[in-house]
């Protein structure tokens, strides 16, 4: 038997199990040598990435294929349409998110090498880092509701410990505490919703639930509780207060991976709305009195309203923020707003019969923006970390004239700045343009607000660029040198991908985003592939 075929066959399990194995081995390896430990961790991450790429190649080569992996079962697993064992169900959307997570994981691990060098407790740091990566992959790839909850908890516990990594700063501990409170309540809400669904349908598998779901009143309650929990984890506005703190106080390498963890929660919301509830959302009309209310229209409008508030608050808070990393964190809140704006706009139209492609286009823009946001915001956080590393300074008021000493970092910041505010040559422009177009067809006011906020975001970052990098040379920063090579390499990887996507957006949309959109909109394919495939 060919080893590559074996790897592809077992790849969904290996993608999660190998980082876990690495995490369990790290405390033993780090007893030998520090350098060996770093090499070991990077090797584990690269090996996992290689398997992700193999799986991605396998999925993309066959359109609409869903790779189902059964844990522990060799014989029949679903008889009469119920899944006993845990299944991993990998389709276009899963593998799309997994690719994003892969990029972030590689960049984060390489960046950590120099960035965290001067700290103690690095063996546990790398253990937790691998655990976040494993948890993220688990959340993304799983097809089982309870398994999703377990990996969500792994991710949030490990993230919490790493947010509070610099324990000599009270604010970092405070941020970690806020994060664990919000995320554990969110996770418990999710568990409650899972329990409701289990009690009704006696199933935990997503495909089986999607097949069985009746959309009764109890299911609507479960959906509301589920979305509340996931929104808490994803940092959508009423529950966004943990996000700037956590992003701002964590070490930059951790923030990078936190961006991925947040988006994994967003993926969870997408999966629940479009796949688990998708079939019944599409043909549900609710009668209240004489009026028919289209429920997914209602949900879409609600999400769009949340998105607008999220964008607004993110941009406004970013305008008046003085701490570099917190400012980027508020920009990240605004970017999350753009994603859910597209998703909400898609929800209003994508299931209706008269839709002429607006909904699909909005979904395309939203999903593409998930990829771009991870890269843009991630790059900005890495630059902020580099500046902190070089100057030990976080406040924007005290920075200035760094462009002379840190040439490469300046270039990377410029790339990130243009990308995050949606300027033409970069990837942010490509996805935001699709979002503007599709929301314009839904309602012109939405796209106007979105464009205005994007311009404000540009203004914010130009101000930062001017005050931190340009301006008069300060004598305090004479000794400042360019950051070490590994940090430059990590930033360079992300910057290269940003420019590549910016130059060839259609290539990425056709090959990677379109399968994900197809996977989302076609939930009957998902059900039949998983249940019928065994």
């Amino acid at each position, binding site marked *: 038997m060919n080893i590559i075929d074996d790897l592809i066959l077992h790849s969904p*399990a290996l993608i999660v*199990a190998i980082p876990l*194995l690495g995490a369990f081995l790290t405390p033993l390896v780090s*007893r030998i040598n520090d350098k060996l430990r770093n090499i070991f961790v990077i090797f584990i991450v690269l090996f996992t990435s290689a398997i992700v790429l193999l799986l991605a190649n396998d999925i993309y080569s066959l359109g609409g294929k869903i790779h189902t992996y*059964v844990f522990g079962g*060799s014989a029949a697993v679903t008889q009469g349409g119920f899944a006993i064992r845990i299944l991993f169900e990998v389709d276009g959307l899963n593998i799309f998110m997994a690719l994003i997570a892969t990029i972030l994981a590689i960049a984060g691990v390489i960046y950590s090498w120099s960035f965290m060098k001067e700290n103690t407790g690095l063996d546990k740091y790398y253990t937790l880092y691998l655990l976040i990566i494993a948890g993220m992959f688990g959340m993304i790839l799983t097809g089982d509701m309870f398994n999703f909850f377990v990996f969500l908890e792994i991710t949030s516990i490990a993230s919490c410990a790493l947010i509070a990594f610099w324990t000599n700063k009270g604010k970092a501990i405070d941020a970690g505490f806020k994060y664990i409170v919000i995320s554990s309540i969110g996770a418990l809400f999710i568990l409650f919703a899972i329990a409701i669904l289990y009690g009704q349908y006696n199933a935990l598998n997503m495909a089986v639930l999607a097949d069985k779901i009746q959309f009764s009143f109890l299911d609507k309650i479960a959906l509301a509780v589920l979305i509340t929990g996931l929104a808490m984890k994803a940092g959508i506005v009423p529950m966004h207060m943990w996000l700037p703190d956590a992003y701002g106080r964590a070490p930059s390498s951790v923030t990078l991976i936190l961006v991925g963890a947040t988006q994994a929660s967003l993926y969870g919301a997408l999966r629940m709305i479009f796949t688990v509830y998708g079939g019944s959302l599409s043909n549900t009309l609710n009668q209240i009195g004489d009026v028919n209310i289209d429920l997914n229209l209602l949900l879409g409008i609600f999400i769009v309203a949340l998105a607008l508030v999220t964008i607004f608050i993110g941009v406004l808070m970013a305008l008046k923020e003085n701490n570099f990393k917190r400012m980027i964190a508020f920009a990240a809140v605004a970017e999350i707003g753009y994603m859910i704006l597209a998703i909400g706009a898609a929800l209003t139209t994508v299931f209706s019969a008269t839709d002429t492609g607006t909904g699909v286009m909005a979904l395309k823009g939203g999903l593409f923006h998930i990829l771009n946001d991870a890269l843009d915001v991630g790059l900005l956080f890495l630059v902020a970390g580099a500046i902190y590393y070089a100057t030990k300074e976080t406040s924007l008021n005290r920075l200035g004239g760094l462009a002379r000493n840190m040439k490469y970092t300046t270039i990377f910041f410029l790339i990130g700045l243009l990308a995050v505010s949606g300027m033409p040559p970069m990837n942010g422009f490509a996805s935001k343009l699709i979002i503007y177009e599709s929301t314009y067809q839904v309602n012109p006011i939405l796209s106007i607000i979105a464009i205005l906020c994007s311009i404000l975001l540009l203004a914010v970052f130009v101000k930062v660029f001017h005050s931190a990098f340009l301006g008069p040379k300060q004598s305090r920063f004479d000794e400042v040198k360019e950051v070490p090579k590994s940090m430059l390499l990590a930033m360079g990887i992300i910057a290269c991908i940003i420019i590549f996507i910016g130059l060839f957006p259609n290539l990425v949309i056709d090959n990677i985003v379109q399968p994900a959109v197809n996977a989302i909109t076609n939930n009957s394919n998902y059900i039949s592939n998983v249940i019928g495939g065994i």
Partner: protein
Amino acid sequence: MSGMSRIVKTVTNVAFPIVMIYGLYVIAHGHLTPGGGFQGGAVVASGLAMLLVAYGSVWTMGKVKEKQLSVLESIGALGFISLAFLGILMVLLYSSFQGNFFNNFLINQDIIPIFNEIGRGLANINTAGVIPLMNFAVGLKVIAGLFAIVLVMAYATRLKGVKQK
């Protein structure tokens, strides 16, 4: 002499072996009676925590370091995950079978004569395939893990500056 009074220590000395034995029993019979690796591990760890309360965290930290416990926990976790990985590697053993991650590869086979019987409600230890082995791995992990948590937290909150008699 740190820790609590002599009465507490004596009672602890008497109760400690009983708690240990009970916890280990719960771990070993996880596939037959209520219990398992987590529950038994928690019982044993609570026995160790009792020791910690009675003798004080400074004394306990002198006996065992959290680094050793962490390594022990890693070993337990490694045992668990490698049992799961063996499910994939069972293809090497029986060429006709398609193994999967977390496959219970010891049950329904005659090649390895260990834990391969099917339970008939008679409480035979020699049943249930990899489940007892996994119970032991998880038990080790939970003992080391919970005790490490309690030990580290107790040591961090010890009274500094107060002279311990």
